[in-house]
């Protein structure tokens, strides 16, 4: 059964419970204490040790417009668990697998940190976890966690697991469970899609410019198991307008390499000839 997330940004209050619930369950360290000055967003992006990230987009109304026209968009971003996943295709060790819940899962004990998945993600989700993060003082449980958690830290790639371990025992993923306003909904993907389509209709009827991101779109990635309901263009939320599956570039790339090799080979044959006796 394919499970995933439907993140409805119109219900998000930007509380960041998802970010903390995720770090708590996965025992991920804090990424540092830098003040960004970018609205209420200080984690700024998904990363090797930040698997949920809440983005804040301020669209204040001009002073001569009614204050209610001000907008403050919030979205909880996460790994998209693509139908065709760039990271999974790129992984040379088979560390990245598709599990029985159709989620894209990084096996931390297999990953050897080659880093090829990082540039292979068209959403900029997966990233390397620097070595020995868990020894950082900011690691809350100061090492007192199970090996599973420690496994993840150091020289391997990290991203949302869609709480594979929780799903195995029938638990809801930590972020979706914590979400106070049901902005993050977890469930069977096809069911979520149906719900999402109805939701969009409802919102449109209420005059909200709602649109779905990640399903019912024609691109090489295919549907996303973690998809979104947005009220502005994707770029506003730092999402690619038209993501492309990297492996689609391979035929052309191999082709050009082969062509060059053949050409050079031919030239070589012309040059390297037994001189006439």
């Amino acid at each position: 059964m394919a499970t995933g997330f439907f993140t409805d940004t119109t219900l998000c209050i930007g509380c960041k419970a998802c970010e903390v619930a995720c770090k708590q369950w996965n025992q991920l360290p804090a990424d540092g204490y830098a003040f960004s000055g970018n609205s209420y967003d200080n984690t700024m992006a998904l990363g090797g040790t930040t698997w949920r990230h809440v983005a804040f987009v301020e669209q204040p109304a001009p002073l001569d417009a009614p204050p209610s026209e001000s907008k403050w968009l919030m979205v909880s971003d996460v790994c998209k668990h693509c139908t065709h996943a760039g990271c999974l295709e790129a992984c040379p060790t088979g560390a990245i697998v598709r599990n029985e819940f159709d989620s894209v899962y990084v096996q931390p004990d297999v990953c050897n940190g080659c880093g090829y998945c990082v540039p292979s993600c068209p959403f900029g989700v997966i990233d390397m976890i620097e070595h020995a993060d868990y020894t950082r003082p900011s690691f809350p449980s100061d090492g007192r966690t199970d090996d599973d958690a420690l496994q993840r830290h150091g020289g391997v790639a990290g991203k949302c697991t869609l709480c594979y371990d929780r799903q195995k025992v029938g638990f809801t993923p930590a972020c979706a469970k914590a979400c106070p306003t049901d902005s993050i909904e977890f469930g069977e993907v096809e069911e979520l899609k149906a719900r999402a389509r109805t939701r969009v209709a409802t919102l449109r009827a209420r005059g909200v410019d709602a649109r779905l991101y990640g399903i019912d779109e024609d691109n090489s990635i295919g549907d996303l198991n973690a998809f979104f309901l947005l009220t502005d263009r994707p770029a506003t939320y730092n999402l690619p307008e038209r993501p492309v599956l990297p492996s689609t570039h391979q035929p052309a790339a191999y082709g050009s390499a082969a062509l060059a090799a053949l050409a050079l080979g031919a030239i070589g044959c012309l040059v390297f000839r037994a001189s006439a006796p």
Partner: protein
Amino acid sequence: MSDALDLRALSPDAANRGASSGDDTFPTYYEQPLLKRPHWGWEVVTYLFVGGIAGGSGMLIALADRTAGEDAALARNARYLSLALAAASPVILIKHLGRPERFHHMLRVVKFKSPMSMGVWGLIAFSAASSRAALAQAARDGLVPGWLAFLGPRWFTNPAQALVGAFLAGYTGVLISATAIPLWAKGKRHIPAASVCSGFGAACAANAALLALRNEASDSQRKLERVELVAGLAELAILLDFRRSAGALGAPMFDGARGRKLTNATLLGGIVLPALLNVLPFHPRWKTIATSALTLFGGYALRESFIEAGKTSADDPRAAFRQPE
């Protein structure tokens, strides 16, 4: 100030406030990168470079053996060289892994969809062929018992080294092209071809230099110089066409300081200058060695600018919003 005043315009980071306007002017998210930059450093650059030479040498062996012993010295050197480089490659590769002790995990799977996986298997195949070829060569050279020669019959090792070598020289270009990094993806028709040419050219240079150093087979040196000239000019043409077709996406590679470095080290220093020197009628040893050095350096610089420009390209959200199809 008047009430008509738009607070967004006043806001210090107005652009970042996510105003959704005209189609091509993307509202970036506080100028944050959309993509993650690769964590690759000099190890990977060196690996791409060395792989190129090894692969190119593999191709040269087959060519050299076509001439009934005229280029025997070249073939011999190339066999030893390709083995040496093939042996060095995994070491460099392992060095850059986050968990080097897990290098062997690369051998858990064979993935046609993963150039990295293909490359590893290619490298293994090439190493196998090269070691047999080198062993046989050593037998013929009397360095080891002669009967060992049967392990590396030329009818097997030559085509193997040539084919896998060509792959080795080219897949690294495929590897970076088949990513989400706008510059690399944009260069999917150029980067692999350029890699092959550059690798082949570098192999010619390396072998020419070896011959020159050992002061032997000057005919072979001339042949190598001719082939290198062609490879160089092809590489030049490909890069110029890449620059043209890449347009704005090519900026990280072709503009600014990095662009100048590419022009000087690779285009001029690594291709044009050696070409000019090569066409000169006289051929002193130092010239061969010098042109070879220039070509090799140019080749390294090219790989470096691929990787470094890729990182910059990854940091440009506007480029990433529109990923090359």
